[in-house]
């Protein structure tokens, strides 16, 4: 247990403290570091402060910049949570259902981490989410560097109710016209957002990038199936070689991923 735990919005941390799951000896509030509560532009990228709240990210001026992140932030919970919860906190908690995480994964965002004595290092967000790299003692997430793509982006989330709720499945999809790429990430079905790389490359090769950025309608449905199969693979065949059925709940999850990916691509290209 570290001697002190940093706290920003506290929407995850304080819930754990109140439930008696966590008893930090001390808390260090990050709320007054105004430097990380805004954003700035840097070489075609945006440098987002880790202290940006979901409410701030959800506003129209930010939505014009990174629409998918804004949509994810607006879907992230009731207003009380969005007013307090921060981007950095969402990354640090790394919950499977963290709403901004698939967007950051699809955008291939980079974390800029501040360490003791002014040390600074960078880490792709996917490395932290996958557990390939971790925050060390005394380190804080300072900024998140996100490319500005100037193209449609979509975030879609399926929940159990009409009001705010935990994602059953979420899909983030961004177009990168400069690199003629489509990048997609699926959240909530696995401990970290999943990237269906082959499906991305396949659909990018079908898009008419120089014309109206369209694909044939059949390709939308096929993309959805491709993404779903990548995230929730078919079960291994039985010993006698007969194909196995997914359990009904998992099959439903897979259909939902397919529907969301298809809808997301359709909206991005429309």
């Amino acid at each position, binding site marked *: 247990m570290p001697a002190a735990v940093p706290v920003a919005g506290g929407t995850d941390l304080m819930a754990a403290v109140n*439930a008696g799951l966590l008893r930090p000896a001390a808390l260090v509030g990050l709320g007054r570091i105004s430097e990380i509560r805004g954003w700035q532009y840097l070489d075609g990228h945006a440098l987002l402060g880790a202290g940006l709240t979901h409410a701030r990210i959800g506003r129209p001026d930010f939505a014009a910049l990174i629409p998918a992140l804004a949509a994810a932030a607006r879907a992230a919970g009731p207003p009380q949570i969005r007013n307090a919860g921060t981007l950095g906190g969402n990354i640090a908690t790394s919950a499977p259902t963290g709403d901004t995480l698939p967007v950051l994964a699809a955008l291939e965002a980079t974390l800029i981490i501040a360490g003791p004595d002014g040390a600074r290092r960078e880490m792709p967000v996917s490395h932290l989410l996958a557990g390939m790299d971790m925050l060390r003692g005394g380190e804080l997430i300072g900024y998140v560097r996100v490319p500005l793509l100037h193209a449609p982006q979509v975030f879609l989330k*399926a929940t159990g*109710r*009409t009001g705010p*709720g935990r994602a059953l499945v979420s899909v983030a999809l961004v177009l990168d016209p400069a690199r003629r790429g489509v990048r997609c990430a699926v959240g909530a079905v696995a401990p970290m957002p999943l990237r269906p790389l082959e499906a991305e490359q396949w659909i990018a090769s079908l898009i008419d990038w120089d014309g109206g950025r369209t694909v044939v309608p059949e390709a939308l449905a096929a993309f959805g199936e491709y993404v779903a199969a990548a995230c929730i693979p078919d079960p291994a065949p039985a010993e006698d070689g007969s194909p196995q059925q997914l359990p009904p*709940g998992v099959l439903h999850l897979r259909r939902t991923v397919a529907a969301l990916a298809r809808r997301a691509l359709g909206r991005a290209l429309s």
Partner: protein
Amino acid sequence: MSNEGAATATTATTTPPPGRSESPPDSAGRLSGPHGLGASLRSEDARAKTEGTFPYAADLWAEGLLWAAVLRSPHPHARIVSIDTAQARAMPGVRAVITHEDVPGTTTYGRGTADRPVFAAEVVRHHGEPIAAVAADHPDTARMAAAAVIVDYEVLDPITDPEQAFEAEPLHPDGNLIRHIPLRHGDADAVGETVVEGLYRIGRQDPAPIGAEAGLAVPRPDGGVELYVASTDPHADRDRAAACYALGAEHVKVVVTGVPGATADREDPGFQLPLGLLALKTGCPVKLTATREESFLGHAHRHPTLLRYRHHADAEGRLVKVEAQILLDAGAYADTSSDALAAAVSFACGPYVVPNAFIEGWAVRTNNPPSGHVRGEGAMQVCAAYEAQMDKLARKLGVDPAELRMRNVMATGDLLPTGQTVTCPAPVAELLTAVREAPLPPLPKDSPEDEWLLPGGPEGAGEPGAVRRGVGYGLGMVHMLGAEGADEVSTATVKVQDGVATVICAAVETGQGFATLARQIVQETLGLEEVHVAPVDTDQPPAGPGCRGRHTWVSGGAVERAAKMVRTQLLQPLAHKFGMSTELLQIADGKITSYDGVLSTTVEEAMDGKELWATAQCRPHPTEPLDEAGQGDAFVGLAFCAIRAVVDVDVEIGSVRVVELAVAQDVGRVLNPGRLAARIEAGVTQGVGAALTENLRTPRGLVRHPDLTGYALPTALDAPAIRIVKLVEERDVVAPFGAKAASAVPVVTSPAAVASAVRAATGRPVNRLPIRPQAAVVTG
């Protein structure tokens, strides 16, 4: 769910009941402003509650108080080998640690049978069962000390499938079968031309009160103890506590604090009893405020139910016979499962005429969390099943589902499957007609795109092309007051002094509006404007629990009688002086006038500084228990409701949004239109939760996600537009005001209506509640 907050969010979309306004249409015409019965009087504490200044039990404080914590079992089924409290006792700040060895009186309690230990002694039978309790000078110390109690468990295999409970080893000395009712009514050999069958499962709804349990116990100098809790049945709680503490009932006093939401029996005795024990042991006031997790673990839930049905009908769709098997999962302890089973079996056919009925019901013990009284228990589960059967029958016969229902509805004079004749008003046909004829909400294509809330919410994944609309119907019924011979008596006192009336009655204001109603009754009877309702404690005579519309009926009846007795005391001397009977005198606006207006005097003058008191009781006509064939006049009265649900379903991902619920309800008489609409909205919203999202999951007997993120209550966005299209006012002659219970029947009916609408939208069978997304998906 106790979700009054979410429910009131829909008020704006509700049309006021027809023919009712703020001014009272009082036949007697004694009062001019919004007073008396029929007026939308506001609750006296509404402002304080809205502003957050209303003191609940969690806000109480006493000098030198200690904090309590309860250690609960992490296992659903285990043998306790040993309990070592030495380490916990040695912690600084800990003042007392108690276990089953420290219970001086009876060690078990229960609402029906006393089968539940105060603290588990040898065996734990469900996740969250109390094992020990601690009092310490700080809440954190108390929690840590509770965690430091070392319990050596021998973990046993839990029995969590109620179907296995019949064959399994007894989980309790009383056995695993809590009650079995084999109802037989009519000709067993009758068959219909058309037969439909179905298997239905209803999940575990939690009452989820907005305010979690809390209490304060204060020792008295005479060796007794006072409990300050949000009890809904204070006298029963007092008797239970007195037996547990081995004290006389006069040495235990329960003082009722503000009740933060109650759609079930409130305040779990699992912490209430230890609280008093700790106060007696330490000699200090002891307080406990439960966390949300403890609240989910501690209180009783709605019975998860498995139902198997076979309906026989003739070629025209008239019901010939209903066969059903109903299995209630009572959890580890009996609680009120016997009552829930009686309701489930008696109402298994619904408000339909069924000449032959063979219903078998069981309530069994498992290692799941205990089930108990939650609004509409028993009746809600069977309603979902019999309405699904009606839809299935309509589909098989090719008849409109509402038309099929219309051909079978019961009316006054028909028989229940229990052999009891329905003597109260039963305007079921009128209710169904009202919801059928109500205009449908506009289709999405007729409303602007940005105003259309898609399933999945404003930021959800909904796509207009994948959304299908469905319309479905539900007809439901509940009984009022306790059944099967329960003595449903209540006592009330009315006092008048200096032109101000005070009502003293131990009926707890749980949000149902009793305190407001009591004021209205006294205003109506005595013509006084200023009426107060005294806070409730057990020094007052008992009024019984607040459930099934009891307090409007028996406590309201008692208040009216007491008020009438005061009226007679007040008018008798005058009537004698003027040589006329008291009936010819009227009281209005502080004046007493004779029928012809010749004589007039002020109330103040007539009172002449006197203080007038009267106490009265109200006891409804007796009922009888169901016999071994499930027959008997078990119910005092019945209430009915018809709901038409309109839903939008995203058929690719299975998300459902309830667009509108049109409600027509049999209310007997409207006593407070504003309050009545609020109760119906609250009930409907609780039903929508049961239909779509509310299910406390307990895989292998362990409660999963006991928090309000995992357990999804309806929010303002989930609550549909609730349109009260008709309130049928046909007075029930045996009820004191002719009024019927209003809160429970919408809870019972709305889940069935929502499921019916989802069935209509998707063509899927929808045989499980809450409706899972995969059950609402249309593939291919």
